[in-house]
C-alpha cells in the first residue's frame, strides 16, 4: 500500500471542460482564427515585399492564415496544465464528436458530389447526342470558313467575327464552334453553334445545348449540398472548414495515446462501436494529408471572395490597341505556343475579337460561376481588348484549373498577355499556389490521379459516415440485460437524418446522371441568326429541383419507414437510375452506330451493379436478426 503522500502526488486525470468553458475557448479560438485570416489579408496588401505577388500572394497567405487559424483554434481548446497525453485527449473528446455529428453529413455530401465532379467534362461529353461526323476541319481551312460565315457588306460584326472557339481534334484539324452566350470557367455553360463541313465548300450549322447536370453537381459540391445561393453558402462553408480542420487536428490528438497499438487494426467481430472506431481512425489517419489539403483549399475558396481584393503588379501586360488586320491563323498561334512551352498540349483556342465581359465578382455572381478566382480581378483583359485564350494540359506539371492550364495572347500579334497560368512557365509563388489547387482538384498526373481521387473521395465519404455511426453508437443507452444498446430519441432521429442525407445525396446524384442525356440537345439551324439563347439558368434550376426532390423523398422515407427498408429501397432506386442512364446512352449510341465513351459507361455500370448488390443484400430476408 502506498503512503498517503505518494497517493496525493498521483496524477489525477483532469475532467473534460464544462460546456461554458468549452464555448469560451471556442469563441476565443474563433477570434484568433479570424485575426489570423485578417492579418494574412493585411500582410498581402500592406507589406511592401508581398505586394508584388498580388492575388497569388493573397491566396497563399489566406491559406497560411487558415492553417494558423485551425491550429490556434485547436490550441485554444487544449491549452492548460496536463501531464499525460491522455489528459490532453480528454479535453478534445466531446468537442471532436459534436463537430463530427454536426458537420459530417454536409461534408460527406460535399465529398460524394466532388467525386462525381471529377468527371464533369467526360459526363458532359457522355450525355450529349451524337455530333455531326464532318466536324473536323483542317486548321488551314478555318479562316475561309469564317469568311463564309460572315455575310459580306453588312458592316456589322456577326457572331463569328467576335468570338469563336477551335477545339483541336488532331494536331492539324479542329472543330469550330461559336458560343451563343458569355462564359466563365465553371460557370453556367453556354449553348454553342457547331459548324460542320459535309463537303468542301459547304457548311452545315447546328445548335448544341449542353447539359446543365455537371454544373449542378459542381454547385452541390461547392455548397456541400446546401440549397442556398453560392455567395450566401460560402461563409458558412468557410466556417465549416475551420471546424473540419479543428476536428482533424483534435482527432490526431485523440489517437496519439493509443496510436502505436491500434494503428492498422480493424476488428470486425465484437462490439459495433469498436468496428466504427477502427474504421474511422484508419480512414482518417491514412488520408490525413488529403483531408487537410481539402480543408485548407476549401477555406481559401470560401473566404477569399469575402476579403478585400488585392491589386498587385502581376497583372497582365498593358493592353494593345486592337489591330485592324486579320487575327493570327491558328497554325501560327500554335507554333508560337509550341516555342513558348514545348510540353504544353493545347486543347482549345478561343478567339475573342469584339467587346466581351470582364471577369469580376458581379460577373461571376451573374453567371453562377465559382466566386474564388486565382487571378484576382484582372483575369481577362479590359472589355474592349481582343484576346486569344489557349487552354490545354501538361502531363508533367500541375494545372491550376480543374483539368487545364491557359495562356492569354494578343490575337493579332501573338504577344503573350498573361502566362501566369501556363504550366511550366510560372513564378515560384504561382507554382506553389497551382500545386495547392491541383492537390484539391486532382489536376496533375492525368487519368491515374483522377481515379486515385475517386478512391480518396469515397474514403472521405466513408470517413464521415463512420464518424456519424461512431457518435451514434457512443450515445445509445445501455439497458441492463440487453446485449445491444438501445436508441434514444435523439440518436434515433440523428441516425435517420444522417443516413437519409447521405443516401438521399447518392440517390439525387444518380437521378441527375440519369437526367443528363435528356437535357443535352442538338438540332440543325440554317443561319447564325436562327440560334436561340437557351434558358440555361432555368434548366439548372429544374435539375437542382429534381435533386432536392429526391433528397427530400429519401429524408421523408427515413422519417416514416423502417431504416432497413429505406436503405434497400433508396439503394435500389439509385441503382435503377444509374442503370437507366447507362442503358439510355448505350442504346442511343447503338441506334446511331456511334462509339460511346467506354470509361464512364463501364464506371457507371460497375457502380450500378454495386448499388443493386447493396440493395439486395439489405432487403434479403434475415430470419434470425431484427
Amino acid at each position, binding site marked *: 500500500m502506498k503512503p498517503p503522500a505518494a497517493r496525493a502526488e498521483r496524477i489525477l486525470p483532469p475532467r473534460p471542460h464544462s460546456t461554458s468553458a468549452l464555448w469560451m475557448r471556442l469563441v476565443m479560438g474563433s477570434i484568433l482564427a479570424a485575426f489570423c485570416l485578417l492579418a494574412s489579408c493585411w500582410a498581402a496588401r500592406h507589406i511592401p515585399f508581398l505586394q508584388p505577388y498580388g492575388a497569388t500572394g493573397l491566396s497563399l497567405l489566406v491559406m497560411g492564415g487558415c492553417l494558423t487559424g485551425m491550429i490556434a483554434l485547436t490550441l485554444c481548446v487544449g491549452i492548460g496544465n496536463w501531464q499525460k497525453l491522455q489528459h490532453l485527449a480528454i479535453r478534445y473528446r466531446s468537442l471532436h464528436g459534436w463537430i463530427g455529428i454536426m458537420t459530417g453529413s454536409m461534408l460527406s455530401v460535399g465529398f460524394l458530389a466532388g467525386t462525381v465532379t471529377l468527371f464533369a467534362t467526360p459526363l458532359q461529353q457522355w450525355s450529349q447526342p451524337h455530333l455531326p461526323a464532318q466536324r473536323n476541319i483542317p486548321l488551314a481551312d478555318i479562316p475561309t470558313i469564317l469568311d463564309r460565315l460572315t455575310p459580306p457588306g453588312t458592316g456589322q460584326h456577326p457572331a463569328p467575327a467576335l468570338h469563336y472557339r477551335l477545339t483541336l481534334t488532331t494536331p492539324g484539324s479542329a472543330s469550330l464552334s461559336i458560343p451563343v452566350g458569355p462564359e466563365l470557367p465553371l460557370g453556367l455553360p453556354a449553348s454553342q453553334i457547331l459548324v460542320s463541313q459535309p463537303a468542301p465548300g459547304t457548311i452545315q450549322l447546328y445548335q448544341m445545348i449542353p447539359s446543365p447536370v455537371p454544373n449542378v453537381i459542381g454547385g452541390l459540391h461547392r455548397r456541400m449540398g446546401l440549397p442556398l445561393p453560392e455567395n450566401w453558402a460560402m461563409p458558412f462553408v468557410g466556417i465549416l472548414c475551420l471546424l473540419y480542420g479543428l476536428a482533424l487536428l483534435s482527432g490526431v490528438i485523440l489517437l496519439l495515446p493509443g*496510436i*502505436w*497499438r*491500434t*494503428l*492498422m*487494426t*480493424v*476488428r*470486425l*467481430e465484437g462490439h459495433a462501436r469498436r468496428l466504427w472506431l477502427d*474504421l474511422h481512425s*484508419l*480512414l482518417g489517419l*491514412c*488520408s490525413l*494529408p*488529403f483531408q487537410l489539403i481539402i480543408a485548407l483549399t476549401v477555406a481559401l475558396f470560401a473566404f477569399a471572395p469575402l476579403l478585400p481584393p488585392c491589386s498587385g503588379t502581376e497583372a497582365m501586360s498593358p493592353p494593345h490597341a486592337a489591330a485592324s488586320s486579320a487575327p493570327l491563323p491558328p497554325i501560327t498561334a500554335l507554333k508560337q505556343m509550341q516555342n513558348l512551352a514545348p510540353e504544353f498540349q493545347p486543347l482549345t483556342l478561343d478567339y475573342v475579337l469584339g467587346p466581351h465581359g470582364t471577369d469580376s465578382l458581379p460577373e461571376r455572381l451573374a453567371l453562377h460561376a465559382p466566386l474564388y478566382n486565382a487571378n484576382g480581378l484582372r483575369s481577362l483583359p479590359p472589355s474592349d481588348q481582343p484576346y486569344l485564350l489557349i487552354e490545354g*494540359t501538361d*502531363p*508533367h*506539371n*500541375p494545372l491550376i484549373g480543374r483539368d487545364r492550364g491557359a495562356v492569354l495572347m494578343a490575337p493579332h500579334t501573338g504577344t503573350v498577355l498573361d502566362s501566369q497560368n501556363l504550366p511550366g512557365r510560372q513564378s515560384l509563388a504561382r507554382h506553389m499556389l497551382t*500545386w495547392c489547387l491541383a*492537390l484539391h482538384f486532382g489536376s*496533375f*498526373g*492525368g*487519368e*491515374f*490521379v483522377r481515379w*486515385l*481521387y475517386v*478512391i*480518396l473521395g469515397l*474514403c472521405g465519404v466513408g470517413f464521415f459516415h463512420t464518424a456519424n455511426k461512431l457518435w451514434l453508437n457512443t450515445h445509445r443507452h445501455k439497458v441492463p440485460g440487453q446485449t445491444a444498446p438501445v436508441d434514444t430519441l435523439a440518436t434515433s432521429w440523428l441516425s435517420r437524418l444522417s443516413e437519409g442525407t447521405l443516401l438521399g445525396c447518392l440517390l439525387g446524384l444518380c437521378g441527375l446522371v440519369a437526367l443528363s442525356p435528356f437535357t443535352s440537345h442538338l438540332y440543325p439551324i440554317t443561319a447564325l441568326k436562327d440560334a436561340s439563347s437557351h434558358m440555361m439558368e432555368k434548366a439548372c434550376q429544374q435539375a437542382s429541383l429534381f435533386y432536392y426532390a429526391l433528397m427530400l423523398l429519401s429524408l421523408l422515407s427515413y422519417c416514416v419507414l423502417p431504416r432497413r427498408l429505406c436503405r434497400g429501397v433508396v439503394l435500389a432506386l439509385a441503382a435503377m437510375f444509374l442503370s437507366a442512364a447507362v442503358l439510355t446512352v448505350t442504346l442511343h449510341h447503338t441506334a446511331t452506330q456511334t462509339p460511346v465513351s467506354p470509361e464512364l459507361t463501364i464506371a457507371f455500370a460497375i457502380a450500378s451493379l454495386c448499388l443493386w448488390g447493396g440493395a439486395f443484400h439489405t432487403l434479403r430476408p434475415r430470419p434470425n436478426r431484427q
Partner: protein
Amino acid sequence: MTGMVTDPLFFWAGLLAGTAWVMLLWIQLPGHTPRPARLSRSAGLAGLALSGGLAWVLWSPVFGPVSAFFCLGGWSMALLCFMPVFWALFRTYRSHTPG
C-alpha cells in the same frame, strides 16, 4: 491517360514498385498486420527505401518529379485505407474456416 499513353512501361513498373513500397510500409506499421518472421526490421526498412526510391524514379519521367512524389503519396493513402480492411476480412474468413 495523359501520362500512361506516353510511357506505359514506366507507369506500370512504377505502380508495381509503389505497391511494393506500400505493402512494406504496411507490414512495418503497428496493429494487426501480417508480420513475416523472416523479414528483419532493418531489411524491411532497406526494402522500403529502395522500393520507394524506385517507384519515384520510374514515375518521374511519366508525371514529372514533384507530381511523381504526390502520386506515390496518393497511391499509398488509397492502399493503406483498404489493405487493413481486406486483411481483417481475410483473417475473419480464415478463423471461421474449419481446418
